[in-house]
């Protein structure tokens, strides 16, 4: 912090007023920047010898994951514990559902057990919105169906900013199965809010819907969001890219008739060294994981990505600490769609 007699006015601090974090679509650029600054502070905490602060002492954070996911679940658990919260981990599986316990019943039970905040991941789009209607505390969406994964998008943005400075005007390419990807949708909201030049690329069967979305936002975009480009031309997408994010392609997509084969996808759309050569030399390669090496990303490119992965893990804990911290404040008004 500069100690010279600076007379520049300091920017007004945006207060976090959202009771829940269900998606990035309702965050303004100022709120996103607040998350970034708070994440900086959390990274500093993580660098200390004792990487723990008492900010959430006495707060019960219940982690309710309906989908198996070790990486994200542990990231949230470590984040909550670093803030001295009491953590309860529930790995609900679909068998709870077949046993007849509805999502609403589970949320009510979790509330009765003392949860102040719930971090949830669910396989059905929209599930956290239902939870937010019946839970008196805060809901943090850890991923719902194909719809949203706000902490991942914010973590991706944080990592991009760490490497590129501001993402405004930088070319970011998301390559792969966007149709079924909550990471892709959330990144569209956050990157267009941050003013990046976003490109979405994949086979036409997988792009449908996104081209209409891009068309709706064309020519000026939506208020607070820049337009973005959708194309199945991999070379045009990757040319001079600053960031390339490859998304996982799943076998089920072939079974649903969307693609002829994974081999064909790898041949036409896989991120290889040759394809990556048209991007900027220092282009950042990212993948939300887990990777199918040889399908959406070639093994020799995956090695380049590896250095970013460790960074992503630390950034992930820091971003999640920031989100838990911001959500833990009291909330004078409940806001719809938030």
């Amino acid at each position, binding site marked *: 912090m500069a*100690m010279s007699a600076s007379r520049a006015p300091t920017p007004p601090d945006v207060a976090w007023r959202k009771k829940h974090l269900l998606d990035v679509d309702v965050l303004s650029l100022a709120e996103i920047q607040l998350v970034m600054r708070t994440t900086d502070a959390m990274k500093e905490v993580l660098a200390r010898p004792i990487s723990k602060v008492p900010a959430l002492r006495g707060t019960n954070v219940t982690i309710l994951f309906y989908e198996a996911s070790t990486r994200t679940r542990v990231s949230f658990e470590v984040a909550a514990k670093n803030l001295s919260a009491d953590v309860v981990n529930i790995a609900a599986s679909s068998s709870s559902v077949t046993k007849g316990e509805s999502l609403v019943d589970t949320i009510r039970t979790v509330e009765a057990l003392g949860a102040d905040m719930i971090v949830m991941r669910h396989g059905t789009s929209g599930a956290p919105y239902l939870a937010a209607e019946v839970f008196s505390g805060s809901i943090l969406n850890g991923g719902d169906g194909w719809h949203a994964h706000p902490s991942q998008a914010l973590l991706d943005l944080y990592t991009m900013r760490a490497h590129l400075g501001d993402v405004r005007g930088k070319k970011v390419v998301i390559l792969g199965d966007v149709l079924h990807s909550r990471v892709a949708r959330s990144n569209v909201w956050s990157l267009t809010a941050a003013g990046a030049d976003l490109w979405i690329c994949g086979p036409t069967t997988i792009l449908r819907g996104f081209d209409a979305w891009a068309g709706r936002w064309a020519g000026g975009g939506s208020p607070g969001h820049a337009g973005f480009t959708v194309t199945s031309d991999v070379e045009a997408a990757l040319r001079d890219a600053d960031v390339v994010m490859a998304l996982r392609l799943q076998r089920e997509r072939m079974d649903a008739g969307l693609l002829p084969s994974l081999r064909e996808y790898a041949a036409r759309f896989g991120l290889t060294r040759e394809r990556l050569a048209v991007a900027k030399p220092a282009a950042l390669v990212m993948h939300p994981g887990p990777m199918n090496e040889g399908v959406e990303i070639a093994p020799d490119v995956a090695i380049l990505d590896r250095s970013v992965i460790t960074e992503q893990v630390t950034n992930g804990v820091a971003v999640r600490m920031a989100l838990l911290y911001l959500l833990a404040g*009291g909330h004078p008004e409940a806001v719809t769609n938030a």
Partner: protein
Amino acid sequence: MDGRQIMTADEIRRAVIRISHELVEKQAGTDGLVLVGIQRRGVPLAHRIAVAVEEHEGVTLPVGALDITFYRDDLSLIAQQPVVKGTQLPVDLNGRTVVLVDDVLYTGRTIRAAMDALVDFGRPRAIRLAVLVDRGHRELPIRADHVGKNVPTSSDEVVEVALVEIDGEDAVRIERVDAPAPTT
């Protein structure tokens, strides 16, 4: 800002100089001293004290900034989470004498939080406290070692410290809390 002015720029300057002499006198020198300013306005004050010490002792003391937001005891009571400013400590605190610097000492809860934060960074040999203004009304058993000015206040008053580095001027004012909002 409205309200009654209780310290002018010159008075602030002289208080900083006096405090810088006092803390060197108490330490019988400058060895082991670290100045840690509490965010936000404690930080420029800590830097000014270090500059004053350098002028009369010829020694540059290390200066750090401490954000106590995560250690506040009232986080669950307030409307929104306060925005974090950040902590930077330039040296290892183990075995050092830390002088905490803040602008106003009131209930003592900020200092309590600051001490909790400091022990997470190491084990100082001693912790001392220097403040520009002590306005009384302690709620915890905390006292300052070095005080710029003692100002008796009532609980419906607010003490506002302005510093050039942040506010563009140097002044300390008292204002009643229920005073009408200043027109801008």
